[in-house]
């Protein structure tokens, strides 16, 4: 194998069985055949089986970061687990060159009754560290986790945030040759996520090849040199991040993917958002706008019961989940007495200001205290082009009016 390559996946496939009882039977048969030294004929599907990962091939060079995206159930985690060697492909071949570290599960093997200190040692051992390594890095681990005196308290008294931080702290101290990251970054508070990110960035700078599975398209765009799009186990696309994200969105249906990213609660669902349309300021329906143009958003809803004093809220979201801005009727001191049945509202945004990208409108209908939504949805997509090109990785969020006032030389 070429020494420059960290991971080579050749036509790797993995099958699963949908039925538990049948899967038990197959399991024993496979174990039996393997134990007796016979081939388990794993390359053929038996009744009730399907390919969870189907004929996937790619290569990851040292220093590269590869993203894996795809709708739920597309085989991302299965692929990652195969790269980690937790189970082997049923067909094809995976070659790994180096020690693999995986951020797939944080706090694995933590026992609630043991103290943080005791758990650090167990967890580190499970992740493949030696005693010497842990002794050396112990202070750094505790520092990273930022849990102070709690290190000598049983883990069951930890807040969930502390638990995750400690688990993550151990995991990032593994110093692998190859790093595999699953959605773990989605946990923890903002400050912790930033820390986690900078750590992964750090790995990137050290040219440690990384495979990243994420639903956050912004993360994928920002971090990855190359992205694989999976759908139903098959590889739909491999290539640069921007085009991969587009492929994924076309697959998933953009609105669904955004809702997934936000975990948007549809509330009590008593108000349904029927339709969201975008017009330009002249009232013409359009899909593509320049960032210095304005838009009019027309929302149609249906309230199933009579609702007193509702509050309407709208928001503009970028496709990677970045909320750009929002506003509601309460902010503008608009009182709505009640709504019932069919209705609509219109919002005029004088100028978009956002940079090149794909955007959607989020609509929420709140109760009068804004504590519980009656209904919410993400609908109505539009595209913005600006003078700032969409570079794929780090397009700034906004385009504002500015001028160079003075440029002096010497």
């Amino acid at each position, binding site marked *: *194998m070429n020494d420059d390559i960290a991971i080579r996946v050749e036509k790797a496939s*993995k099958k*699963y069985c949908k039925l538990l009882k049948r*899967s*038990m039977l197959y*399991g*024993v048969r*496979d*174990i039996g055949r*393997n*134990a007796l*030294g016979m*081939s*388990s004929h*794993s*390359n053929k599907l038996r009744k009730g089986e399907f390919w969870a990962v189907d004929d996937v091939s790619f290569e990851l060079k*040292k220093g590269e970061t590869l993203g894996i995206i795809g709708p739920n159930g597309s085989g991302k985690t299965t692929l990652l*687990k*195969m790269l*980690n*060697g*937790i*189970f*082997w*492909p*049923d*067909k*094809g*071949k*995976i*070659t*790994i*060159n*180096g*020690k*693999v570290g*995986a951020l*797939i*599960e944080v706090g*694995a*093997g933590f*026992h609630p*009754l*043991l103290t943080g200190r*005791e*758990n650090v*040692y*167990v967890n580190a*051992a*499970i*992740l*493949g560290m*030696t*005693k010497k390594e842990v002794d050396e890095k112990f202070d750094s681990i505790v520092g990273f986790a930022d849990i102070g005196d709690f290190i000598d308290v*049983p883990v069951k008294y930890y807040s969930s945030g502390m638990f995750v931080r400690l688990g993550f702290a151990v995991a990032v101290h593994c110093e692998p*040759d190859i790093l595999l990251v699953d959605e773990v970054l989605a946990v923890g508070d903002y400050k912790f996520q930033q820390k986690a990110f900078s750590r992964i960035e750090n790995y990137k700078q050290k040219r440690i090849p990384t495979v990243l599975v994420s639903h956050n398209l912004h993360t994928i765009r920002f971090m990855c040199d190359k992205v694989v799009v999976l759908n139903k186990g098959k590889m739909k696309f491999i290539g640069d991040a921007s085009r991969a994200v587009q492929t994924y969105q076309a697959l998933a249906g953009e609105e669904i993917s955004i809702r997934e990213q936000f975990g948007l609660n549809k509330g009590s669902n008593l108000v349904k958002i029927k339709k969201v349309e975008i017009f330009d300021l002249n009232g013409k329906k359009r899909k593509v706008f320049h960032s210095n143009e304005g838009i009019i958003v027309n929302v149609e809803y249906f309230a199933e019961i009579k609702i007193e004093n509702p509050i309407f809220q709208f928001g503009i979201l970028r496709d990677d989940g970045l909320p750009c801005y929002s506003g509601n009727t309460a902010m503008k001191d608009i009182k709505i007495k009640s709504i019932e049945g069919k209705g609509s509202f219109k919002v005029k945004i004088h100028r978009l200001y956002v940079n090149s990208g794909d955007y959607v409108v989020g609509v929420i209908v709140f109760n009068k205290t804004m504590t519980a939504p009656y209904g919410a949805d993400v609908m109505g997509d539009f595209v913005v082009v600006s003078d700032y090109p969409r570079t794929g990785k780090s397009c700034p969020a906004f385009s504002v009016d500015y001028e160079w006032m003075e440029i002096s030389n010497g």
Partner: protein
Amino acid sequence: MSNIIKTYEPDNSLKKGYLSIFKEIFSEIRKNRWLTYQLFKRDFFAMYKQSFFGVFWALIIPLVSVGTFIILNQSGIFTFGDIEVPYPIYAVLGMAFWQLFSTGLIASSNSLVKAGSMVVKINFSKKSLVIASSGQSIISFLIQFVLVGILFACYKIVPNIAILLTPITLIPIILLMLGLGFILSLLNGVFRDIGNALSMLITFLMFLTPVLYSKPTGGILASITKYNLLYYLVSAPRELILMGKVSEWKGFIVSSIISIIIFIICLIIFHLTETRVAERI
């Protein structure tokens, strides 16, 4: 960057041949000694941390079962058979050896399922997990052995000098426990029935094995005992401590050889198929 190249493909181990498997297994276990110890320590501390009696729980089961048998005997329901030493010493010693096997087997059989979420998410040595969980029973055994010592003192009996050989005579029963533990933990990963059935079967098996009574001389039980590996594996170390000799040494040696063979076969099967379990657990 360290130059470890690993390939994963179907039926991976087979392609390398059986001989290299031994080397693989051996180096894996050696490499993961610290992990095994950490997992063992975790289980040990976790078990007794939120417990008032702590490690003394290890004494409850032998005391209760031996006590029950003494009551049964005094009521004339049950006879121990022909035993040359005070019954409590005979029984507690037998129970210590038996429990070493039974608790170890139950713990190791459940180890993979118990650590399910870890097994499916992290690639670590599953052998360490099985070995570590059976280590629990060795601690219990040592505690029970202290009880045996106290009983010896109470009855003012000095155990035979051959007691020093106990660690060696225990090797076969430990290997049998580990071997069965390996294979049952795998099967338990696929069929949960194994774990449930095992705890029931093991009590049943204890009553069928002359642990709390002497070797039967007639009836079906006598013929079962003749072929009961566990009888020889328990009674030989016990006889050695109490009498300084092993009367059925042939039986013990044959049982030991069978145990070692079972251990090796089970370990190989476990090694060849452990990745299969991660996908089914």
